Every structure is written in structure tokens, then in C-alpha cells.
């Protein structure tokens, strides 16, 4: 019964977005009724208007350079935050003193409002670096927490086997730690991705780098081009989803590697 299955999958894939697009359309129509034709596009544009704005923007090369600049900044920030978070997690698991040392700092980083960080980093570095630094700062605690948990949850019996079978340190990392950490890495990637994009674009809105989605969002707000604001937001969501998909594919469990 392949056909009903396929139909069911197609419906479950298409119906929810169609429903929410309908809600959006209805909302925009109600706003238009409320303002009596005096520019509902300013408050809540129709989905079709946003789509047209997106097509219009995508025709200019600057759109692609802007998206690429934001993507590069946020990906670099994420990579930096992930590497640093991973190193700190490894250190945290080596000694209780490291945990005592890092845990409060990570807690402070997590509790500090992102705006405070943006403004402070803006004072300390150039405006182009702020989004990457902020994205990294947001990613670091998530990666640290997940990997610390993952390292602690690594099967002690497999680690004992690695010792008894004289595996080198690198071999133990490759054969025991990394595969055990996969679910934790996946969970960290999913959480960190959203955080990195939200905070990175927020930093761009405040710092206004020469090329950046956040700067375009800020410009759209100042010029009351709400459709453009929606279109750039859609680009952020799309890029975030694409990056998340790519990352989770990269760290997915190898086929057949189910727990025993």
C-alpha cells in the first residue's frame, strides 16, 4: 500500500504550512478590513506580497552577498563557539576543579542578556566581528552543557575495554567518545543553530555591518518596508533550517548503528 502512505506523507508535509499560511492570509485580510485600505501592508502584508518582495530582492546580486556575509559570520561564530565549548567540556570532565572553574562562568554567559553582550563586544571590537562573536557566545554554553553530559554518559564498559585492549587515546576518542557523543552533538546543533542565528542577526541589527541580513532588516524597519522585513526574516529562517539540516546530516548515526 505504497500510494496511501505517500499521500499521507505528502499531506502531513503540506497541510500544516498550508494551514498557517491560511491563518496569515486571514490575519492580513482582517488587518486590511480594520485599517480600511489605509495601508495594511505596513502592519501585516499578505503572504503573496512577501513572496514577491523576496523574488524582487533575490534578483539583485547584493541580496546574495548579504545572505552569504551573514551566513559566513554566523557559521564562523558557531564553529568557534562549538570548538571552544567542546574543549571546555573535555577539560570539565578531566577534573572536578575545571568544572568548578567553568560552570559559574558558563551560567553567567547563559543568563546575561544578549543585548548587553552585543553592546559590550561592539565597544571592544569592530562592528563586523560582533555578530560572529555573539553567535559563538550563544553556542558555547549549549555545546559545553550537551558535551559535558555526553562525555559523562559515555559507556564506562566500552572505555574499560578500550583501556584493556590497549587503544591509543585518539583511537578511544574516535571509536568510543565520538560515536557516543553523536546524539548529544545533534541535540546541541539543533538548539545552538537557532540561538546563533537569532543572536547573530540581532547583533547585525544593532551593529549595522556593511553587508548583513540584520542591517537589511534594520533598513526595512526604518523605511517602513514591512514586506522586505518579512522577506529577510524568511531568509534567516531558511538559512537556519538549511544549516541545521546539513549539520544533523553530518553528525547522524551510521546506518545500522542502533543501540544493542
Amino acid at each position: 500500500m505504497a500510494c496511501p502512505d505517500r499521500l499521507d506523507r505528502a499531506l502531513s508535509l503540506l497541510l500544516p504550512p498550508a494551514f498557517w499560511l491560511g491563518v496569515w492570509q486571514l490575519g492580513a485580510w482582517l488587518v486590511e478590513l480594520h485599517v480600511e485600505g489605509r495601508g495594511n501592508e505596513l502592519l501585516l502584508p499578505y503572504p503573496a506580497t512577501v513572496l514577491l518582495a523576496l523574488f524582487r530582492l533575490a534578483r539583485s546580486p547584493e541580496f546574495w552577498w548579504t545572505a552569504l556575509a551573514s551566513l559566513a559570520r554566523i557559521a564562523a561564530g558557531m564553529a568557534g563557539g562549538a570548538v571552544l565549548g567542546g574543549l571546555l567540556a573535555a577539560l570539565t570532565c578531566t577534573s572536578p576543579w575545571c568544572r568548578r572553574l567553568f560552570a559559574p562562568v558558563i551560567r553567567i554567559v547563559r543568563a546575561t542578556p544578549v543585548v548587553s553582550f552585543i553592546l559590550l563586544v561592539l565597544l571592544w571590537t569592530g562592528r563586523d566581528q560582533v555578530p560572529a562573536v555573539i553567535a559563538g557566545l550563544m553556542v558555547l554554553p549549549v555545546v559545553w552543557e550537551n558535551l559535558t553530559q555526553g562525555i559523562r554518559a559515555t559507556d564506562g564498559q566500552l572505555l574499560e575495554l578500550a583501556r584493556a585492549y590497549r587503544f591509543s587515546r585518539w583511537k578511544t576518542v574516535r571509536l568510543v567518545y565520538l560515536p557516543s557523543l553523536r546524539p548529544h552533538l545533534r541535540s546541541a546543533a539543533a538548539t545552538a543553530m537557532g540561538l546563533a542565528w537569532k543572536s547573530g542577526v540581532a547583533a547585525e541589527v544593532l551593529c549595522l555591518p556593511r553587508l548583513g541580513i540584520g542591517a537589511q532588516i534594520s533598513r526595512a524597519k526604518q523605511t517602513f518596508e514591512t514586506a522586505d522585513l518579512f522577506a529577510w526574516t524568511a531568509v534567516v529562517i531558511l538559512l537556519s533550517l538549511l544549516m541545521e539540516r546539513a549539520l544533523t546530516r553530518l553528525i547522524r548515526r551510521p546506518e545500522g548503528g542502533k543501540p544493542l
Partner: protein
Amino acid sequence: MISVSHLTLSYGEKRVLEDFSLTLPERGVTVLSGPSGCGKTTLLRCLAGLERPRSGRIQAPPPRETSLLFQEDRLFPWRTVEQHLMDVLPQSRWAEVPRWLALAELTGEEGSFPASLSGGMRRRLALVRALALGGQLYLLDEPFTGVDPARVRRLMDALRALDAPVLLSSHETLACSLADQVICLDGPPLRLAKGQV
């Protein structure tokens, strides 16, 4: 000579080894037989250097020259059958993999992951991995759990053909009947069973 003398070891309040001494032959297959929980596994782990007795002396090849089959299979869910053997063999000996697979009667399962193997197949894989690791002493903890009698016979033949002494714990009467020596134990704390010299 492989011997332990006056070993004492406790897990919390539980005394597992208390002034325990034993001498083992330098060749052949010796089966340690005894009820579950009597301390056989602890003795094997002491010989493998994984447990440190509170007192006593162990005269055996160093841990780096010892190969231990754990009581549990301890297979990597993310490694294939073939990779399990490649993991313990240096690259220069990867050509031996088919021979070890044949011994475990796992030829044709090279690309399978442990989750798709039966309990007996997993045990055989864990066993040949320990044998492939090699060493001057093989310590095998319940190697035949879930393995059928015909295969136990063939594997015991292979164990007897090894250059190094094999010490295995087993409940299988068949394994005991095929061993060069059987040591009956009781405990805890571990001791030679009555009638055992």
C-alpha cells in the same frame, strides 16, 4: 608460572577475595568452574590488571600482554563485525580478519552491525576479538554463553591450539569436559571447592 597468592579484595562490605591463592599451568586450557557470584570474574579482572587487590601478589604476564574477554560482549554498536577485528589488529595483520571470522563462523557477516546479530553470534565475535588481540595469557569470562555445543567443541579446539595459556570461567559442563584442567571454586569469598586439591 602464573599464580596468585594471598589475594584480598572487597567491594564495599562484600569480601570477594580473602587470602586466596592459586597456581595455574603455563599451557593449555584451564576452566574455572563455580557458582555465579563466587568471584571468578574478579579473579580474572585481577589477573588482567583491572582490579587492584588490597593485598597479595600476582605473578602473571603484564596487563599489556594479556587478552581479556569480558563477561559482557562490549561490542561497539556503531562498528561492523569486520571493523571489530580490524580495531584490535594492526593494519599489517588485517589480512587475518577472514581467518578470525571463519573461526567465529561469522563469514558473510562482515558488514553486519552487532544489533543485527544473535546473542550467540555476538558472543563469538567478542571471543575472536579477544583472541585476535593476542597476548601471553588469555582470560575468557564465560566465553560460551549462548553458543551451541557443536561450536563450543570447535572453539575449544582452537583455544587448545593457542601458544599461550587460556584461563576461562564457564558453567558449561561441555567446556569443563574438554578442558586440560578444571578448577572448581566456591564462594564468596572465593575458595577452592571441597575436594579440589
